[in-house]
Structure formats: C-alpha cells, structure tokens
C-alpha cells in the first residue's frame, strides 16, 4: 500500500513563490510571499520613498534664489517630481499592507532612514547642477536595474521614476556646462561643488559587498539585481568621461583607467564618514528631519479642512 502525503500548504505556497522568482516572473500584491521578503521590501521601498521626500530639501533651498525665471521653473518642476516619486513609492509600499500614516510616522520619528546623500548641505547654486549630474546620475545607476525587481508594484514605480530622472540628470549637467562657459569664479564654483559631492555620491551605492550582509538574500529574491560594488564601478566608468567633457577634475588621486580590467580604478570612500552620516551625525540630519516634521505639522490644517469638506459634502448628499 502506498500513501501519498499531501505537502503542507505552507510548503506548497513557498514552492509556488520560489518558482515565480526562478522564472524571473513578478510577485504581485495578493500573492503569498514569505514574511521576510515582505519585510525587506517594506524597508527598502519605504526608505526609498523617504529619500525622495527628504530629497526635496537640498534643492528646494535654492528655488527662491534661482538666477533666472527659466532656472526657477526647471528647479520647481524637478522638486515637484521628487514629491511625485515619493508618492509613487509610498503607494507601492502600501500594497504590502502598511499604511501611509505608519510610513510617515516611521520617517518623522527617525525609525526608518533615508539616503545619506541628503544630509549634506547645498552651499552654492552650482550644487543644484552637481546634484542633478552626480546624485541623480548615481540614483539612475541604482534604479534602472530596479525596474526589473521581482515585486511588481515596485518595478512599475521605478519605471515611471527612471523616465523622469533622465530630465533631472540632463538639466543638472546643462546647468554646469553653462557655468563652465562663464567666468573663472563660476568655473571655480562648479569645481568646488564637484569636490564636495563626488565622494558622498559614491557612498550612495551602500557599503562594499563584503560588508553588506543583506545583499545576498535580496539578490536571491530578485529584489536587487546588481551588487553595490558593481553599480559603483558602473557609475565611476560613466562619470569620468562626463567630467572630462565638462572640464572638471574628480577629487580622487587614485582614479585611473585600468586597461586590464577595462574599468577605472578608484580610491576607497571614507566609510567611517558614511557610518556617521547614516547613524544621524551628518552635517544636516537634524535640520532635515526638523524641517520635515514642521512641514507635516504646518500642513495639518489643510488635511483637516479637506476631510471636513468631504464629510460635509457626504452629509448634504444624504440629506
């Protein structure tokens, strides 16, 4: 006599999930997924959303002081895009069963982080261009592979974001090119800005692979498609010719072409600085969160008024 043992439902669910991942197919919100996969995604998407929202501040700083109406309109559009990107990502995150209020709370109370780059100040107008060129350039390197991430809503949000990031990077580079055609003082301002943002941009890819403990699992799940070091290398290789065309130098004495590898060699970012900024001790951490909290509190009356208006309209309909 043979008895066939029905596999546990949990095992069957896990097997179906694994098969979907193995086929490079997408997981969708109502599918069963392992709790750890869900938690990892919530953390990653939320931190990505928070980065977009906090990311409005460094550039928003220059809207009122933009040198022309044209530049002001561009900068406004760009900062508005960052808000939009945050909203796409919060929506994607909510499909995993967390509420918007919870996510907002996690940011405002500092329990979830955002990209370290936004804790650096924007000291000159050239920083608007440098952020577009280097910071958004690094973001594009990170984000293009995420369009193929295994979680459907996250991938779809990334596709929309990547389309818009291209405008961000090009407006930044064009701004810097314009300044480089200007006076010596303007060229010096661009170089000084690039000197400040180069290393923090390299840190945007996260710690080196051997010190990035969660990367392996994220890659196995198809959430991440490339390692931190791979993407960092790709960014350096892209940026060097762009810097040459612009006429600026990158502040790394070890930067040189390696014929054998077919890539640029480059120096090691200051990982102690990275750790300090991540853990709250960067130049602007306190200021960024304080500003975000104030904006949230100052906007409370608008949300309340909209809710009251909606409630009254419903009452009138009932009557």
């Amino acid at each position, binding site marked *: 006599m043979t008895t066939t043992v029905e596999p546990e439902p949990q095992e069957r669910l896990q097997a179906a999930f694994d098969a979907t991942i193995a086929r490079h197919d997408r997981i969708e919100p109502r599918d069963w997924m392992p709790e750890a996969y869900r938690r990892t995604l919530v953390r990653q998407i939320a931190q990505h959303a928070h980065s977009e929202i906090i990311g409005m501040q460094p550039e928003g700083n220059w809207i009122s002081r933009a040198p022309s109406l044209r530049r002001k309109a561009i900068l406004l559009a760009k900062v508005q895009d960052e808000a*939009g990107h945050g*909203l796409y990502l919060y*929506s994607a995150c909510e499909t995993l069963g967390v*509420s918007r*209020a919870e996510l907002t709370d996690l940011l405002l109370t500092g329990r979830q982080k955002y990209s370290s780059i936004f804790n650096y100040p924007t000291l000159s107008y050239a920083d608007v261009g440098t952020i577009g060129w280097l910071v958004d350039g690094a973001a594009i390197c990170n984000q293009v592979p995420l369009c193929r991430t295994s979680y459907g809503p996250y991938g779809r949000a990334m596709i929309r974001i990547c389309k818009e990031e291209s405008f961000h990077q090009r407006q930044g580079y064009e701004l810097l090119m314009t300044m480089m055609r200007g006076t010596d003082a303007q060229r010096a301002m661009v170089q000084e800005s690039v000197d400040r943002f180069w290393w923090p941009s390299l840190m945007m890819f996260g710690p080196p692979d051997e010190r990035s403990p969660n990367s392996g699992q994220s890659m196995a799940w198809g959430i991440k498609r490339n390692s931190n070091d791979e993407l960092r290398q790709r960014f350096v290789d892209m940026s060097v010719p762009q810097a040459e065309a612009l006429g600026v130098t990158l502040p790394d004495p070890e930067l040189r072409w390696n014929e054998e590898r077919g890539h640029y060699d480059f120096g090691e970012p200051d990982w102690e600085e990275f750790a300090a900024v991540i853990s709250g001790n960067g130049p602007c951490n306190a200021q960024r969160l304080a500003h975000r909290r104030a904006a949230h509190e100052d906007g*409370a009356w608008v949300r309340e008024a909209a809710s009251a208006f*909606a409630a009254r309209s419903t009452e009138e309909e009932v009557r």
Partner: protein
Amino acid sequence: MTNGDRREWPLYEVFVRGKRGLNHVHVGSLHAPDDAMALRHARDVYTRRNEGVSIWVVRADAITASSPDEKDPLFAPNGDKVYRHPTFYEIPENVPHM
C-alpha cells in the same frame, strides 16, 4: 498629532487614457478625502508630462477582484479550448491572406 490627522483618507486607484483610441490603464494609487480631490491629485501625481487625455479614479474598496487562490477554477475553462485560437487550424501554406 490630532485624531483627524491619523484617520487615513481613502485609497483611490488611478487609470489614465494615454491618448485617444487607447484603453484607460491602471497607473497607481493615491489617498484623497473625496472623489474631486482624488482627480486633482491624480492629475498632479500621474500626468505631469502629457501622459494622458483622460483620468478615472475609483475607490479601491469598490473594486471586486479575482484572488490568486481562485486562479485555477476561474481561469481553467479557457485552458482546454485551444480551438479558440487561430493557430489551432492548419491551412496549407499556398493559401494567401489567411
């Protein structure tokens, strides 16, 4: 934070018609206090670059969805009806325009 602030606005799903002649396609979701605000927010969030000529918003709790668990019984009936596809029929190669 006040109580009113903690009460979440309802979730809306947003559908955009990219241009005349195309279907409305789901593009994402957003929170809004009412239908009119949902439409305004949808314009700002999802159509900043001529992505659409028409927007639908619908409260997410008004959507009835097939669940993945019901996948087999719900979609099984068309699995064994291969004759519904044109490739089921063999036509000699010398017959044109078929």
